[in-house]
């Protein structure tokens, strides 16, 4: 069923009787060409692009709970392509271009809103680093602007300019960045994939891999064995858990990242703003909630909950930057499990097991990558070669010494 203005009006006037399921609830088949483990944003996007771009439709997406229950449903919804390094920037810019056309492509309003991101800087050294990055963004076509303090006073007069421990000196802005409605992204891809024949199978947890002569032939699940020509794993925070079933260790640690939303408020925050002297970033949802976050809790965890110290740290940053926030209230706070890698950059690659492919290590920025990640993983699964924008995201970059370390902190996942 295609959504259209006509359809929406017709249904409104006739009691919404004509809306059907957004996706089917199929029983798993015995065999698929491709089985994707993980019904999150990346898994669903992979299935969508496999079907739409690469014509591979005999595909199942296996989700242990409900689709979108992982990080795509619990992030702070920021999209951006403001990276520095040549291994990353073209990929994220490709993602941004897919975002820009996502609704028309999927016929589903994921509420992509290019309201801009501003990374504030507070020292000359930070400014120089942002200038280097901004220039990389210019070179990749992503676009960037260096904002002076005067520019910022105009755009965001509520920032603490005059009584700050770390005065705001300016900001790097990407105007094309912004936010999207996170659940809507998962749903749009799910519906688009389902319409093209992909089976989305919820409540189906993978419990093991079937192997034959060094190749994977299928997966064992809580709903039986499902055969597969190829298996793609896209399970983010659960990467370690799932790949352990294939006997593999990864350059990844699973850690908890908290996110926060305030009670609904009339519009106050334009776009996305990040603090450069404390770990705090913020935007405002269409519904009016302030959506914000900060640092990782910093230890290995699969618990989807964080601790009070990080809550305090985030709000210390928030109050230092925007002292007018004090009388708003926190509505909800939750944790997501993020797959932090040893250089802070992702992996989209074959594994050393035949027909087993891996997509992960999204660190704490997987959401913005969703379209390109799905596209590139679909490309890899369909063509068995990396997508041109994802060539650097290989497993062997660590052993060979070609890490993509935007922050320059080395093999210390909680610092990326």
């Amino acid at each position, binding site marked *: 069923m295609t959504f259209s*203005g006509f359809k929406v009006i017709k249904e409104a006037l006739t009691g919404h009787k004509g809306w059907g399921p957004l996706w089917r609830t199929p029983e798993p088949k015995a065999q698929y060409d491709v089985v994707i483990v993980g019904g999150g944003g990346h898994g669903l996007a992979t299935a969508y692009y496999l079907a739409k771009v690469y014509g591979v439709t005999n595909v199942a997406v296996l989700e242990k709970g409900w689709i979108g229950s992982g990080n795509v449903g619990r992030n702070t919804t920021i999209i951006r392509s403001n990276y520095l390094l040549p291994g990353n920037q073209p990929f994220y810019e490709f993602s941004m271009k897919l975002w820009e056309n996502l609704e028309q492509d999927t016929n589903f309003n994921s509420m992509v809103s290019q309201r801009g991101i501003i990374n504030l800087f507070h020292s000359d050294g930070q400014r120089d680093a942002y200038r280097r990055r901004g220039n990389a963004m210019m070179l990749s076509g992503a676009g960037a602007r260096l904002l002076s303090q005067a520019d910022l006073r105009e755009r965001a007069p509520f920032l603490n300019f005059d009584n700050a421990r770390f005065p705001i000196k300016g900001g790097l802005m990407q105007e094309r960045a912004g936010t999207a409605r996170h659940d809507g992204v998962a749903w749009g891809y799910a519906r688009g994939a389902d319409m093209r024949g992909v089976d989305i199978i919820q409540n189906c947890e993978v419990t093991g891999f079937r192997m034959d002569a060094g190749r994977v032939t299928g997966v064992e699940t809580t709903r039986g064995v499902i055969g597969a020509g190829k298996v793609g794993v896209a399970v983010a925070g659960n990467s370690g858990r799932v790949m352990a079933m294939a006997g593999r260790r990864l350059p990844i640690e699973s850690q908890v990242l908290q996110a926060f939303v305030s009670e609904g408020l009339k519009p106050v925050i334009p776009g996305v703003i990040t603090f450069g002297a404390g770990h705090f970033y913020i935007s405002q949802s269409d519904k009016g909630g302030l959506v914000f976050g900060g640092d990782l809790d910093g230890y290995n965890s699969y618990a989807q*909950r964080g601790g009070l110290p990080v809550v305090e740290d985030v709000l210390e940053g928030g109050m230092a930057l925007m002292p007018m926030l004090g009388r708003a209230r926190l509505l909800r706070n939750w944790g997501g499990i993020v797959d932090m890698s040893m250089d802070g950059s992702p992996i989209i690659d074959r594994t050393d097991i035949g027909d087993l492919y891996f997509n992960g290590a999204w660190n704490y920025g997987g959401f913005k990558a969703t379209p390109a990640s799905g596209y590139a993983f679909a490309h890899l699964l369909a063509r068995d070669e990396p997508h041109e924008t994802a060539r650097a995201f290989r497993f062997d970059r660590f052993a060979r010494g070609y890490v993509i370390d935007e922050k320059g902190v080395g093999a210390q996942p909680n610092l990326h």
Partner: protein
Amino acid sequence: MTRLSGGLIDRNRPLKFTFNGTAYSGFAGDTLASALLANGVQLMGRSFKYHRPRGVFSAGSEEPNALVELREGARQEPNTRATVAELYDGLSARSQNHVGPLHRDLLAVNDLFSPFFAAGFYYKTFMWPRAFWEKLYEPLIRNAAGLGRLSMLPDPDSYDKGFLHCDLLVIGAGPAGLAAALTAGRAGARVILGDEDFHLGGRLLMESDLLDGAPAEAWVATVKAELESLPNVRIMTRTTVFGVYDHGIFGAVERVSDHLPEPGSTVRQTLWRITAKRSVLAAGATERHIPFADNDRPGIMLAGAMRAYANRWAASPVRQGNDAIAIFTNGDDGHRTARDLLAKGANLLGVIDTRKGAAAQGDYKVFDGAMVTGTKGRLGLRAIEITRDGQSSWHDAGALGVAGGWNPNVHLSSHHRGRPVWDEARLAFVPGQNGPAGMIPAGAAAGQGGTAQALASGAAGAIAALAEIGITAHPIALPTAKDASADQEAFWHVPGKRRAWVDFQNDVTVKDIKLAHQENMRPVEHLKRWTTLGMATDQGKTANVSALAVMAELTGKSLPETGTTIFRPPYTGVSLGVLGGGDTGKGFRPERLTPTHHWAKARGAEFVEVGPWMRAQYFPQAGERTWRETVDREVLAVRAGVGLCDVTTLGKIDVQGADAGEFLNRIYANMMGTLKVGMVRYGLMLREDGHLYDDGTCARLAEDHYVVTTTTANAGAVYRNMEFAHQCLWPDLDVQLISTTDAWAQIAVAGPKSRELLSRIVDGFDLSNEAFPFMACANLTVCGGLRARLFRISFSGELAYEIAVPARYGAALMERLMTRGQDLGATPYGTEALGVLRIEKGHAAGAELNGQTTAQMLGLGRMVSQKKDSIGAIMSRREGLAQEKRRLVGLKSLAPQTMAVSGAHLFEQGATRSMETDQGWVTSACYSPHLQGYIALAYLENGDARMGETLVAANPLEGTEVPVEVVSAHFIDPEGGRLRD
């Protein structure tokens, strides 16, 4: 006025307040909601989506409707629940989320278009044409959405935070909580009793039940007096325990002065981190409603709330004294409200009971086997439709209480993702076995909602909890009480075609849930996200279970099979100000001050934030018009005479022990074990992954004593890593480490006249080049007996020293050097001049050591010793690092007045500007007064082989391009003669 008799309000303390500009009065003990009701005000707000008129729905923090902007100016506080806003004299509140006056909201037009705004509507439309989403649709939606407004002014109040510890934390001070606290208190346990209300007693205050034959508040007062007398018990009213964290840590907010017109000299709120060995969750229960057609009009509220307003606040829910009140219930609890209202003299229309054969429990009419199927009254309830056996009739009513059963407040028990379990007998979710470790639910929160049950389970909970930590508590005498009948039937919503609200604030109706079911949004989380059910400020406290029941009916599954809802912190909204803890403005982070800070300040220095440190940036003198003028003077003074700079911020680590040399061999990429006593060596540290990590000097003061210096930024991390290497990798080495960064003040004395200056303060120490050559170090005394360490090292490229004295003498040493060096032109210089001097010399700093670079890139690849193992040595040989071709070079600007800025990228002349043709980037840049031109350092592909080449430093970000010549990074004295003279 619709004020009733009795109640726990102080009629001797009238309070004035305004709502939407109209003046009213209430009494001490009122909430804003009770005072408004007592003034006959039903209409208090507007709903989120359809802007439906709304009145107060509850009497507690679960309130979905009566949200107001409280206070004026910078203290304006949006989305405040009128039900928990304690009345104070002069309170001012305004309703929110409407355009025009509350009773004539222009956005109420949304309600007419509600067929278009069904669940999930946004996802299906607003896509055409593409550009309209951001330019038209989204701004419209944004402005219509949201609830209250922030003032946009800095919060003027202060906040505090603190730690508390106890054996038993009792959450909630109703019957269960009081019994638990008293039991534990008498046992001598350290007890904290927290309640969000400003009175102890919880539900006891809302009911007419007798304890020991007397009104319950008498027992509450007795218990309160005893608890207050126990030194081991801390009572915390106005305190919400909002979250449960790992290992028995709870977050709680105490609203210290929200009940006052202004905080005065105290804080507004305090954030408490309570570490409790055990806890009793006695958070009570929240009543649920029964959705029916048009059930959201002002005047319709929870029956238990109606009872609470009548009993505790002596407030009637109707606009005028004699308006009829009806109760709609599926069980005996609704009859309790009817009895209490009758006792207060209310005009009771009757009780509409869904149960066939239900009988009156007092002198009122019962419509048994009946339902409410419709209502009238745009801004306040006027009439209800009662349907019984297919026959409908309209009845005038000014208020309707709805009693659908009680949901235990399981919230905190699910903060660790433990799932509540369905109790079919009680028709409610109760806390499961997998709640947070050490938490025992009691009272209504555990489904033990009868007064006697609650008292007993609270006391038993405390005994059980304390037994686990070895404290014996004995049963206490509990007052005699009755358990009211909780008989009810599973009746979840009234079927019908009109809209029946489930989630009031977010305007989610039974129809929306049906549509979600039809569209396969059936998992409870999909239902919530698709319809926004439970996402409002009340977190669906009155809505979620009813919604699950509707979905269960549609799927034909049982309610627990359909799903459970778990809750996340915080239990109720917590102000961002208190979570920030009050360290705002300049207090955001502490400042670290150097020993000469006050001296520099007195000389008029400008300061700059360098991590946590404040450092002198430059020292302007009278007549200097720009910072550059000042910095140029300082640089030239160093090159020509002698300059002084506080470099205390560099990390200093003392390394002592027989194996100190061997240990440092393993820490540094280059050899340190062979360093002669009395000498200093420049050292590179790598991360274990082979990348360059930190650099600095290493001095050997004795056979078994080294002093390591680090960069300012990495001082803490290098020390941590060295402790790691010592404790975790090589615990058998005889070495001890201590950070002495704060113990020693260190001053750089740089310039051709530095030896002369120093010779004037040392106590007979031979500074001659022969006795104390470049890279020498020594312990000595200065200024007549002050112990000091002297290092002949140079960051500027001049003859230079760094002298360290105990930190408390740092300022005195600086003053002495300035005095004694007056005739030599001794000049203090700051971080800017320091930066220029090191760029001129080609020394690396933070921009070059950014964690992405290697020793090769600095041109120091050969320093990584191949003869020994050290951290990072093996990994530095990996292919990608070994083949690294970028090198540090110098750049001279070929455009006379233009600087190649840091962050510019390098391109060959005529090359396209792209990531593929990118040749490197500028790391540091400055004006060199020595060379009288702009210079820079840069990393450049094959940099070593490109001396003399002309490149372009492109900065498309700011639209500038500068031609530059590639030169050696050592702009001055490349042979190093000045250092060694």
